[in-house]
């Protein structure tokens, strides 16, 4: 049989499906955008130049660094660390540890952050102006023995002085965050195949090392993306520090500066722009972390491949 090449179908040159409604949507969006830009440019109350000025004020920058950035980092470090501990407790064989972890999560998830911060800042200072660390019931025992009541006190903390510093904000937000991180970490730990634990046990690893070296690094792949979201949410929640009250914080400072200048909107805009900048940077960092903890799953990144080639060449 001979094949007539002219009869065989060649390259496809078809007309694409038309999408008229997409063009309608693009048109509508373009009109809305144009209106927005027009209003930005023509409504003098926006006053973007003044907003940029507010962004550069010393008090605003200080609020950004101390309240917003340090507050976020500090509370997330505390939240992630404590959260993982609580998650491991929650998965423990010991019913007391499990119960404590459950109770902790229950309490701090039910507690609004604003209320918690107010209690820590004002309420605790009212109840316990001075916090002493020492033997349990040390003061009572010393009293009974008739010696100086501070004998069994190792050190004491002036809560009144502490309650006006950022540390109390880090503590409050961190305690609250730990409850959410515990749930995230628990899901991450449970997502790791049981065979991984068995393989680690089979080479004689202790339970602690198995958790730390084998299970947690793999759980991180599941834990990191929601932790990024939590961090970004925390950036915004630092604006609640005013409940303590701590005012060295971005929103309060930007808003306050605008108010004092009788230009409220530029104050809002200044805070918004800073939040947008910080959160954008965090999203970039998050994608790097995801790549790092995703190693060994799917295609390795270019940098990892380069490193692999180097390692291979070493051998």
């Amino acid at each position, binding site marked *: 049989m001979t094949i007539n090449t002219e009869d065989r179908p060649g390259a496809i040159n078809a007309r694409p499906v038309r999408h008229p409604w997409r063009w309608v949507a693009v048109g509508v969006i373009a009109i809305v955008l144009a209106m927005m830009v027009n209003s930005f440019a023509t409504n003098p109350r926006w006053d973007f130049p003044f907003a940029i000025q507010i962004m550069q004020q010393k008090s605003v920058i200080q609020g950004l660094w101390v309240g917003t950035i340090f507050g976020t980092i500090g509370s997330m470090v505390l939240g992630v660390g404590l959260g993982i501990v609580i998650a491991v407790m929650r998965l423990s064989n010991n019913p007391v540890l499990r119960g404590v972890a459950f109770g902790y999560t229950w309490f701090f998830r039910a507690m609004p952050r604003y209320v918690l911060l107010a209690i820590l800042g004002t309420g605790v200072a009212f109840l316990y102006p001075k916090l002493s660390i020492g033997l349990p019931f040390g003061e009572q025992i010393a009293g009974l023995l008739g010696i100086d009541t501070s004998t069994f006190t190792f050190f004491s903390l002036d809560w009144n002085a502490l309650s006006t510093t950022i540390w109390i904000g880090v503590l409050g937000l961190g305690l609250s965050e730990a409850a959410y991180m515990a749930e995230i970490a628990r899901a991450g730990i449970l997502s790791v*195949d049981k*065979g*991984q634990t*068995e*393989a*680690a*046990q*089979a*080479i*004689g*690893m*202790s*339970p602690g*090392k198995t958790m730390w*070296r*084998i299970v947690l*690094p*793999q759980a991180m792949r599941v834990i990191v993306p929601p932790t990024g979201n939590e961090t970004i949410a925390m950036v915004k929640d630092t604006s609640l520090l005013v409940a303590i009250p701590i005012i060295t914080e971005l929103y309060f400072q930007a808003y306050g500066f605008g108010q004092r200048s009788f230009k409220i909107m530029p104050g809002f805009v200044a805070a918004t722009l800073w939040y947008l900048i910080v959160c954008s940077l965090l999203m970039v960092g998050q994608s790097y972390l995801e790549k790092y*903890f995703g*190693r*060994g*799953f*799917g295609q*390795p990144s270019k940098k990892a491949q380069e490193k*692999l*080639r180097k*390692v*291979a060449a070493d*051998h």
Partner: protein
Amino acid sequence: MSSQRTGEPLVHAVNVHKSFHGNEVLKGIDLDVWPGEVVVLLGPSGSGKTTFLRCINQLETIDGGRIWVDGDLLGYEDRHGTLHRLTDKKIADQRRDIGMCFQRFNLFPHKTALENITEGPVQVKGQNKDQARARALDLLERVGLKDKPAAYPSQLSGGQQQRVAIARALAMDPKLMLFDEPTSALDPELVGEVLAVMRELAQSGMTMIVVTHEMGFARDVADRVVFMDGGVIVEQGSPDEVIRNPQHARTRSFLQRVLTEHPAA
């Protein structure tokens, strides 16, 4: 490969019982394995062979009976006739000398082949890193993967992963190797490369207990074949005795089924 049964058995299991939620899976297993011996456990699924293997490595705790490995009672300390449960740390120490390979390989996916192998020696035995690396490279060569130290498990075929898993177990210098259906999850064309490594291991004098359906391996490599069914050992003996000339009806019907499915054996 014939082993001389001198001295004490390496594995001494007596009247081992194990139940899962009231369902008795092991109903009194007695088995001795001598140093250098290769024992293949055969049996239909649900016969308890995998469970028994896991009990030897304490991945399951037994409900009754005793298992000794190299003279050590597993999981308990006998103080004047009273058994005291060992701590997790001590149980981990007992597992050091027992290597195990799993059906699903269970390599650590976040570590390279080399790191998988050095993890145990460095983290458990406290070996020097360079030493452990050098040893790991030797082991990779032994299992035919000299060129793959930097590969992550996801970049390896199933057969390659299982060979890395064997190297990982060998890095701990085990006295005993346990294989839990090491080729069952593999594509047929990859089975041979894993069995070849296991054959070489058997020839080198390693004591091995192997759960497998590979009749060819059982016939050629095993010193003893143990047939289990319904949680008990039905019969055991040399491959010739059990595979060619089974005494029990249950063994015969099992072998008939397996051999018609794998006529190559």
